[in-house]
């Protein structure tokens, strides 16, 4: 159920990907997401798929875990694919039934879109699987630090993200517990009209809010006791340092980018 959500989970390891500077990793993954959107044909997309596949191998994250992160999105992938099959105009008509026409172009677009979504998810999960949430938020804090110019509280945002990541599993457990407790008193949110189902959520939401406020209050005390006064004057145990592999990664990303642009030009051949 909700416990199965794997997005944002860290998979401990010591691969090259694990050791890269989280800032560079975040930037490159961001760049690769843009590249995925730039891909215009199967050559460029195929290259991206190959690169992402090799990166998965390097990360040593089990294939099973990667597939698991795709699981919640299967519906979206299929939905997009189906939509594209039926709504893409033009191309050669393969067969038709009722008002739907299926063309080769439709199938082409459907497969293309589905692959793109799968690659998008895989590359982002590679980032979260190989980077601890703490270093990820640290990286974001650093990367966003230019925004301070616009009076944006970058540190506060990063701290909020850390705490959210920290408390998601705790809250999921809590929801589970409250649901079971109310079920034991005969609560039922699986039958009845939409309104009565929504109403049935009150016995879960009220205790959840109350306990979250209590947690927040206690956490604030605990943080104060540990001398937390915001970002000023704070040091970090884990220093981020760009090393040779990081610069190589940057160079590699640039190379990949050029390759995508070239392949997009279709000079290899046209489909």
């Amino acid at each position, binding site marked *: 159920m909700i416990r199965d959500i794997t997005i944002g989970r*860290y998979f*401990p390891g010591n691969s090259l990907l694990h050791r890269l500077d989280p800032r560079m990793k975040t930037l490159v993954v961001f760049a690769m997401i843009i590249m995925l959107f730039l891909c215009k044909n199967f050559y460029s997309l195929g290259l991206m798929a190959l690169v992402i596949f090799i990166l998965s191998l390097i990360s040593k994250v089990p294939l099973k875990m990667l597939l698991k992160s795709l699981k919640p999105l299967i519906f979206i992938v299929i939905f997009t694919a189906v939509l594209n099959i039926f709504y893409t105009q033009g191309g050669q008509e393969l067969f038709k039934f009722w008002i739907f026409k299926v063309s080769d172009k439709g199938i082409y677009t459907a497969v293309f879109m589905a692959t793109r979504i799968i690659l998008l998810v895989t590359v982002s999960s590679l980032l979260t699987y190989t980077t*601890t*949430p*703490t270093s990820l938020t640290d990286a974001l804090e650093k990367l966003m630090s230019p925004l301070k110019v616009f009076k944006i509280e970058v540190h506060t945002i990063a701290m909020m993200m*850390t*705490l959210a*990541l*920290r408390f998601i*599993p*705790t809250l999921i*457990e809590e929801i589970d517990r409250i649901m079971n407790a109310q079920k034991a008193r005969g609560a039922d949110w699986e039958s009845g009209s939409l309104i009565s189902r929504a109403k049935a959520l009150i016995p879960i939401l009220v205790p959840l809010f109350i306990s979250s406020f*209590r*947690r927040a209050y*206690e*956490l604030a*005390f*605990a*943080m*104060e*006791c*540990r*001398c*937390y*006064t915001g970002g000023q*004057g*704070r*040091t*970090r*145990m*884990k*220093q981020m340092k760009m090393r040779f592999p990081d610069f190589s990664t940057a160079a590699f990303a640039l190379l990949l980018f050029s390759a995508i642009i070239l392949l997009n030009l279709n000079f290899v051949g046209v489909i």
Partner: protein
Amino acid sequence: MQDSNIKNPIIEFVDVSFSYEAEDDGTQKVLDKINLSIKPGEFICILGHNGSGKSTLAKLTNAIYVPQKGRVVVDGKDTADENLVNDIRQTVGMVFQNPDNQIVATIVEDDVAFGPENLGVAPEEIRQRVDKALKDVGMYDYRHHEPHKLSGGQKQRIAIAGILAMQTKCMVLDEPTAMLDPVGRAEVFETVMRLNKDFGITVIFITHFMEEAVKAERVLVMDDGKIVQDGSPREVFSDVQKIKSVGLDVPQASELCYRLRKAGIDLPPGMLDEEECANAIIKAAEDIS
């Protein structure tokens, strides 16, 4: 005491009173003229039923609350002085009841580093402190784990390591074992005892469990915002009636001896554990025959 090298107290309460604002405009007095002096290196257990004021007393020791009347002085610093708040919190660390609500990071070692990071300690030194603190509480092997997957006792030890890494001289633990099972309870209590013995860290341990209190050097019993008993466990647990009258328990061994004594069997007061209690009974049996 005429001891010439008498140590200055690390925490001192002088006529401290504290009230919360109640809903209907009035105030509710929680602490009433508390006088208390704690010496460096002491291991103190505070007992008291819910609402007796012990949690408030804990929160006064590191300037989370500031007394409305009287003074709290920590290592020579008055907690009312806002400029000294960080110094005071570096002297007195706190561990709370709910292990989940005091861990801020998603990886064990990052959480332990949180305190020293806030203090602006240099990165290399934080690393050393974190590693040492985790070893001291026996959690070094778990440094890369996610806290939410640990047991309650392990989480509390992480919280303790977080304070050790700040190199505080004193540790205040507000019912740290209340939500744990017997194994976790023993784990946490023994860790704290060891830290007190090995490093001379002053410990104030608030609890409901008498088997913990009997192992302290000094026991304070609170009732209705006042300290009603202050002494060694033996002294405190001798007066079974008094302890029961404030809604607390005594160890079974103490109560057994107490009731036998009342029934006319000649037993000394204040027996704390099964060994003492059994020996006293055997002695009484020999005396009769």
